[in-house]
């Protein structure tokens, strides 16, 4: 691929690798843990690390926050970081909270219906429902519900 593992290269990419590790921690919680609330928290961790990845791309060395002086007298020598990723991530944070709220509302509804928020228990209950339905309607539907 034509790159050298110099110290500059490693330091310049460490941020991406760190955020990848955080992302994977979030993904692991979502995939491996059975509790639905914990899954949502894992999803949030994943989300936040994606935000950090984007924001770190907009950073310019020696740059400052993209806010001009109040009198709008802009000094051309001042370096500003890229404001575009900030805008995109602002939108993404708010949308992320909206989806979190929706997910948590779904969890409350699941708790009401199944009386548990553990994925394993929910699967067990659903299998039991399918079996009883098979026992009742099985013959009429050719042995399969």
């Amino acid at each position: 691929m034509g790159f050298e593992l110099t110290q500059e290269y490693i330091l310049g990419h460490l941020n991406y690798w760190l955020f990848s590790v955080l992302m994977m921690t979030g993904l692991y919680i979502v995939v491996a843990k059975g509790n639905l609330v914990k899954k949502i928290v894992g999803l949030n961790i994943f989300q936040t690390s994606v935000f950090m990845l984007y924001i770190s791309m907009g950073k310019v060395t020696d740059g400052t926050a993209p806010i001009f002086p109040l009198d709008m007298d802009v000094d051309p020598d001042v370096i500003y970081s890229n404001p575009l990723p900030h805008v995109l991530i602002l939108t993404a944070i708010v949308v992320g909270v909206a989806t979190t709220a929706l997910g948590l509302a779904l969890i409350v509804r699941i708790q009401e219906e199944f009386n548990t928020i553990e994925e394993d228990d929910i699967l067990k209950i659903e299998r039991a429902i399918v079996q009883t339905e098979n026992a009742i309607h099985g013959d009429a539907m050719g042995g399969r519900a």
Partner: protein
Amino acid sequence: MLVLTAIAVVRMRSLFAIAMLSGVFSLLSALLFVTLDAVDVAFTEAAVGAGISTVLVLGTLALTSRFEKPTKRSPVLPLFVVFVTGAALIYGTLDMPNFGSPEAPAQMHVGPDYLEDSVHEINIPNVVTSILASYRGYDTLGETAVVFTAGIGVLLLLSGLRRRRRDDEEDESEEV
């Protein structure tokens, strides 16, 4: 610090502690955003991520259970998936420009245009605000649509809660 908090979330069983740790995680990431020059994002993350999200999770815990049951599933397959995905992601970053490089592709196109033009086109000191509300106003309109839809969804899912509970109690008292 962020990695430690995330790993603590993996290990913890008490959901209450997990809710608090996710708040800590959001606050730490807000600090990181400040050092990366994204002050607006840091405000939002601190208010929304550490504030509203934590309150929402705590509200859910009040309506459901407070502890996680230990799962019997083996962690081997998830670990495998996670490592393969992580390796693919890190392989993808190998071509990326160095951190903070002013020659990065992200710094080459519309970003500098916004910085130069918004001085005389919008005349607001905060460039993030002028992009959010003016240049990319339609994005923000779409965002409000998403939030509105999510709000309706939450209301629909939860509105029946109290009514159904009352019906159940009435049924029981009639049977007695």
